[in-house]
């Protein structure tokens, strides 16, 4: 912001009055830039998230199995209830796509693909993945990235319009940018943070804390060239690096909660439709 105040200060100095710049216009610009950097409130976060979720559902619909969808919602809602954003309108969906991936959408919408579910062995592994995604929402990782990007692509009033008018062109731009985040990926530090918090959230929910590392190990065993994992590997640190990081920072927590239930039987019955 500093660079914006400097020209303004020059204009306000009488010695530069002969430049006869349009002061109102400059003040307008300053005002609008400050609008673009304002915090997105929770109501707006939820509304933006709904639009982004609709786009992802346009790429892949839900697996048409009510039992599976309700099951994943129960696991996810229970985990989200153990967090500082327990009151968000959390919803969870299994996308009918062969690719292995999971997505966190601002405002509390979480997706996991049928392809990833098919690789899991028990409910603790599902809990580990959902907890990682819940952590992204808690820390507003995508929302912050969207806000940062909007300062560049939506100048002036456009950002405000995008937030307030869901039918505006600016809104469409914001949602496009937000959805593109899923093919570009977050910062590596965001992903590693979500892994650490994910382990904690799964443990709080009473699950074997090794669920997330177990899924990472399954992914690590796969070929990075496999088309089913191409996008997930491109947008996340390598599974081996994520396992290293968890070993370094989370070993005591993992071991303290490694004997909690894994629930393979319930998972096998309830997630049958993803196989």
């Amino acid at each position, binding site marked *: 912001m500093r660079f914006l105040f400097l020209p303004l200060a020059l204009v306000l100095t009488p010695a530069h009055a002969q430049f006869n710049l349009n002061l109102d216009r400059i003040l307008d610009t300053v005002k609008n830039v400050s609008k673009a950097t304002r915090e997105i409130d929770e109501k707006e976060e939820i509304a933006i998230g709904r639009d982004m979720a609709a786009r992802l559902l346009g790429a892949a619909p839900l697996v048409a199995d009510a039992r599976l969808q309700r099951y994943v919602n129960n696991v996810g809602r229970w985990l989200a209830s153990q967090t500082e954003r327990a009151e968000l309108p959390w919803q969870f969906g299994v996308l009918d796509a062969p*690719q292995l991936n999971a997505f966190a959408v601002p405002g509390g919408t979480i997706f996991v693909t049928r392809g990833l579910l098919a690789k899991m062995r028990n409910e603790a592994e599902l809990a580990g993945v959902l907890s990682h995604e819940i952590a992204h929402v808690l820390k507003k990782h995508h929302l912050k990235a969207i806000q940062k990007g909007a300062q560049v692509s939506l100048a002036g009033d456009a950002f405000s319009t995008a937030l307030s008018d869901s039918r505006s062109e600016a809104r469409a731009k914001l949602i496009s940018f937000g959805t593109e985040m899923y093919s570009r990926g977050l910062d590596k530090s965001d992903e590693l943070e979500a892994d650490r918090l994910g382990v904690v959230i799964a443990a709080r929910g009473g699950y074997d804390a090794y669920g997330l590392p177990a899924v990472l190990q399954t992914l690590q065993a*796969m070929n990075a060239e496999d088309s089913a994992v191409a996008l997930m590997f491109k947008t996340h640190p390598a599974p081996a690096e994520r396992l290293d990081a968890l070993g370094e920072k989370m070993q005591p927590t993992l071991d303290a909660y490694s004997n909690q239930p894994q629930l393979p039987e319930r998972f096998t019955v309830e997630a049958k439709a993803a196989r």
Partner: protein
Amino acid sequence: MRFLALLWLLPFLCWAEPAVVIRATELKKEPATDAATVAELAENAALDAGERKGGWTRVRTPGGSEGWVKMLLLRYGAPGTAKAGDTGLSQMFNVARTGTSGTTVTTGVRGLDAEQISNAHPNVAELGKMASFAATKEASSGFAKRAKLQARQVDYPAP
């Protein structure tokens, strides 16, 4: 679909996966730090990995010794070899959905690669359907209780 049926069996096949340990470690008789040591394993020692129990994975050495190592020390894939190739999953799903050869379907196939995400149009009907499956806090609490899951106080790690 025979391939998918095999995938489903994978978790139940013991000793299915070649792996290495990323650091020198002890092969333990039981899945516990204070269990007897069966053998000393060098960094990058090749093993066959089996099932996991808590933070431990059952392994077998090429010499035939069996025991347990810390699961976070294991990385899958034999040293110096490429991992298994493309699962062909994407193609199979295309076949399943269209009933024709997956390779002939180049447009209009939905899925979650980068391009498909970028080109997606909003599906508001599916969004509504998803909302109908949402669980309340209370319902999910009962769901947890039925499996004897117990909520714990666990602190986040220091940043």
